[in-house]
């Protein structure tokens, strides 16, 4: 009892400074803004299987795409319409090699992402955990978006999110790890 209590305290200790790496002038854009309009109530889908029997999907907002076969996220249009960000998504096959990937994201330095895509899309690592039996498997196609979006998020809500859900269902995903870049 006592030990479990101590463990829980350590586990739930809040240690991260959410604004450590954010320019000070950007902080009011994020802090204290509350829920997105209409998104106040809890949403919950219980995770019902054992991890070792579950198929896991990853979603990154780093703007990865396959440079040989997919279109880049549209950063040209963003150059002209500064408050707009490409709302589309790409499926990144688990078989993609690091050298197959490119990054289209004007708000972050892409050097580390290109040097080691695992820092935002840990597909190899998830495969390793699958081989070790920690998870049951991964989907064949993970998901990439470009995280800079207009404030209304209408295209994400009406088009992109339903398409991603359909993709994840088709892939048999039991759970999704989203990693904002």
């Amino acid at each position, binding site marked *: 009892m006592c030990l479990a209590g101590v463990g829980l305290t350590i586990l739930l200790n809040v240690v991260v400074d959410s604004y450590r790496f954010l320019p000070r002038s950007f902080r009011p854009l994020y802090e204290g803004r509350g829920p997105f309009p209409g998104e106040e109530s809890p949403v919950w889908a219980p995770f019902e299987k054992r991890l070792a029997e579950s198929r896991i999907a990853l979603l990154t907002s780093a703007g990865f795409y396959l440079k040989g076969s997919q279109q880049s996220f549209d950063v040209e249009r963003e150059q002209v319409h500064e408050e707009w960000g490409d709302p589309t998504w790409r499926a990144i096959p688990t078989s993609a090699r690091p050298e197959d990937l490119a990054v289209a994201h004007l708000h972050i330095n*892409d050097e580390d992402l290109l*040097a080691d895509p695992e820092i935002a899309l840990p597909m190899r690592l998830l495969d390793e955990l699958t081989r070790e039996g920690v998870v049951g498997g991964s989907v064949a196609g993970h998901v990439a978006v470009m995280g800079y979006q207009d404030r209304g998020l209408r295209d994400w809500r009406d088009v992109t*999110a339903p398409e991603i859900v359909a993709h994840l269902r088709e892939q048999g995903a039991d759970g999704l790890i989203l990693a904002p870049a």
Partner: protein
Amino acid sequence: MPVLARWIEAAGIPTVVVTMMPAVAEERRAPRIVGVEFPFGHPFGMPNDRVMQRRVLELALRVLAGAASFGTRVDLDMEWPVPLREAYKAWQPKVPSPIVRKMLEARQDGPRS
């Protein structure tokens, strides 16, 4: 991104958000949150540091599968191994993004005190 997690969760797929701004993800009411004190662009850690990346991914999986209720947040107790000033500069794009460029221009054009 937290709101994208909500829409996917509402469709019946459990989600966890691994983020450098967990306080914002909480405000935005993401169902499950893992906080990391890492620079933007690096949610799973340093390039080529498999041990670090694995700690993040394993924690994300544990929270995804094990969180008992909505709003669970667990922070990874791990410091970024690069000095702050250097890391703060390193994550930012070499050329300012269009919106930042516009903000900077507006500041320059605006009234001066």
